[in-house]
């Protein structure tokens, strides 16, 4: 080995820039958190496709019933069960009502029911589950056993009681959802919190004097949201179909107001003869769900600080 090549000469060095200047700066362009979220979301084409479809469906749900020449309740018994055509884009139902308008009026009902019907019970569940998991011990035991009982009492009993005391209508539907749907998310949040509360950062916050409420709501629950949001989105179709079931036994939206769930239920009875009456509402439910999930996944990835690259 030639030793001379290893000799360091002063001209072998060269100034870059003041190292002090650069060491604090970040290699990526400086953007705020939300700007960054949006940027990454916009780059995600699949998520944008989801958002696009949701927007189209929302616009149609708002506009079609306003501008159509038919109403969702106008009957024409002579033209019942018409196939899709230029006069009735989606055909008509068994009472001769225009399906195109009914589908979009139904979208209003089902989107609202789907979102509220899965968000409200989840929120209740998150709070109860969070408290139960964090405090543990006797309180946890009491809340969990209460959940065991609440899960087993047939929901039909609550439904009929709500029907008797409050009557049918939007408030009753929300109460029915809230009463019957919170237990699952409470248990799931509680389970995750049992695990999370043993983490070092919780111990650190505790040592720094954080209150229980701040620990639960600022540290623990945000860490469960990834999973809760997924179960929430997965709960939308069951909320849509639960509404149809509630309507069928009299607690849902009063006839003749349609919903996607009710339209699908009516469609399954005739799908061997009029397949379009089943295909249209169920394809729309699936498409909406797919869009929600694609957009939701994109949003989740965009929001997750751990996945920044």
């Amino acid at each position, binding site marked *: 080995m030639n030793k001379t090549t290893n000799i360091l000469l002063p001209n072998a060095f060269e100034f870059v820039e003041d190292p002090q200047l650069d060491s604090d700066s970040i290699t990526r362009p400086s953007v705020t958190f939300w700007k960054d979220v949006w940027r990454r979301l916009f780059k995600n*084409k*699949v998520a944008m*496709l989801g958002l696009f479809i949701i927007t189209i469906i929302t616009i149609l749900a708002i506009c079609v019933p306003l501008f159509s020449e038919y109403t969702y*309740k*106008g*009957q024409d*018994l*002579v033209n*019942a*069960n018409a196939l899709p055509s230029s006069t009735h884009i989606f055909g008509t139902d*068994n*009472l*001769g009502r225009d399906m195109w308008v009914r589908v979009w009026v139904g979208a209003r009902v089902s989107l609202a029911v789907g979102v509220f019907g899965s968000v409200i019970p989840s929120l209740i569940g998150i709070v109860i589950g969070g408290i139960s998991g964090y405090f543990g011990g006797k309180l946890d035991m009491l809340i969990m056993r209460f959940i065991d009982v609440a899960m087993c009492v047939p929901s*039909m009993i609550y439904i*009929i009681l709500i*029907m008797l005391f409050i009557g*049918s209508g939007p408030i009753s539907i929300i109460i029915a959802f809230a009463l019957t749907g919170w237990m699952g998310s409470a248990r799931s949040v509680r389970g995750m919190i049992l695990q999370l509360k043993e983490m070092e950062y919780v111990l650190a916050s505790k040592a720094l004097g954080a209150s229980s409420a701040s620990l639960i709501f600022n540290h623990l629950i945000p860490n469960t949201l990834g999973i809760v949001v997924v179960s929430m989105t997965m709960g939308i179709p069951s909320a849509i179909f639960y509404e149809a079931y509630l*309507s*069928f*036994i*009299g607690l849902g939206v*009063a*006839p*003749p107001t349609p919903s996607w769930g009710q339209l699908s239920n*009516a469609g*399954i*009875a*005739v*799908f*061997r*003869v*009029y*397949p379009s009456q*089943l*295909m249209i509402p169920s*394809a729309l439910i699936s*498409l909406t769900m*797919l869009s929600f999930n694609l957009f939701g996944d994109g949003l989740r990835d965009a929001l997750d600080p751990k996945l920044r690259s």
Partner: protein
Amino acid sequence: MKKIVSLLMMIFLMIGLFTGCTASSEEKPAATSEVDNGASSSNEVVDDGTPLAALQEFTFAAANDMMTLDVSKMNDEMSALIMYAANEPLVRYYNGAVTMGLAENYEVLDEGTKLVFHLRDVKWSDGEPVTAGDFEYAFKRLLNPETGSSQCDTFDRIAGAIAYYSGENSDADSVGIKATDDHTLEMTLTQADPFFIEHIAQGINFYPLRQDYVEKYAEGYGSSVESFIGCGPFVLTEWVQGASITLEKNANYWDADKIKLTKVTELIVGDENTRVGMYDLGDVDELYNISKTLTLNYPDYGTKSGGTLQHLVYKSSDDALLANKNLRLALSYSIDRQAIVSALSAPGTEVADRMMDPTNTLNGESIAEKYPASTGIPANGDIEKAKAYLSDALAELNLGSASELPAINYVCLDSASHKAYAEALQARWADTLGVNVEINIMPVPQAIGALLSGQFDIFLNGMGTGVNPDELLSSYTVDGANNYAKWNNQAYTDLIEAQFNETDIDKRLATLQKAEQLFLDESPATPLWLPGTAYICKDYVQGLTYGRQTGSIEFIYASILEH
């Protein structure tokens, strides 16, 4: 971008697969079944020279399982259907007429108040003889309050029955049912009733019962194949609860020569699409009660009607919203029954303009024909009249327009057909009269609770029309416990009582018609239609007939042609 493309491809593939296969359901030629129309056929074996198949096995599908094999407690049509084949009643109702069953003949004595049945030599499926005592035991067990039967009132015409079953008299011997010897059964009636034989024939509880079996199995009698014994054309060999019921030909049956089928299987399949799929695949030979829409795929379907009459009950008591007669008439007259039936009802449904079922018969004759016509509402309604009644009603109520009326509460059962009817009626009343009707759907027990406690304004009642011509009308008497309309009309009540006590049939029907006309003019309830039932059957099944009661498939004399 590639991801999106592949995703879209996937979606379209799935949708294409889905629509592709459903669309082909239309292309597929409908099963070419030639349904044997019950009304015309009897039990001839071969009528067009086609020989019988070697395998005489018949399979059909039904939506619900039977509830019990205990004849004393039986009250559902599915149990009745199996009992009809697995046991032998005194007299049968077959193909629209009364035929002799276990009774070889009967005599009517004492001016119609006594019936004497002479029994054949018949054996139970285990070889024991059937005696008149088995009938006496069966009927008295049914009436015994300790048994807990809901069918006691089918025996109301029998002397002493009401007092015994209601607990006023605990002496079973006071009931007018007596086995005078092994082959003779006597029944004493409270008064002559020409409909009583029809009543026994169409009833579902007039079967004999083996005391030793009942005592052996006690509370569990009739809850399984082992705990039941019959003497009918078939023997029950298997009952997989909720899944299937199998019957095999009874070699000991008194009329075994006439029974061609060796095996009958009922499959319990709750879902209509599944039942139709099974029919297409040949898993079942017959489907009963298929929906109006599906009949489009099976142009050779058959229909039957009768047995029930759907009518709208208006709560008509003095404090009710519909206490005003003209308002009720306005609602009744505005209904276009024909349009609703054509659009929504099962094939075979007929518009009704009176509270009478034309399939009610006496000695094989329709009593509707014997009975003078009442003036009812035209099938398409009469909007002019309806509007006139409405303006009279509004004047009487001091209201300016129909929109000032409070919302009318229509209590609706949670079934798809009831809901469709309610929506059609609601739209019709809103369009023609401007009346606002609110539909309140409820599960069956709660809806009937609302009906019985008067928490409704309108209710669609689909009661059975029974055998007696006054079955529906007799409910609506003053203070009648089953006066669903809570309607108080003394003149009507007097007419109903007069006809009930009348023994001369012509006079009775004339009085009943007067009551019916009064009923239609006052409209505490308005007749809508007689629901029909559509059925499909493979063309190789011969001699299948349908009874009046819903769910009654008379397969006992059917046979299978070579195919």
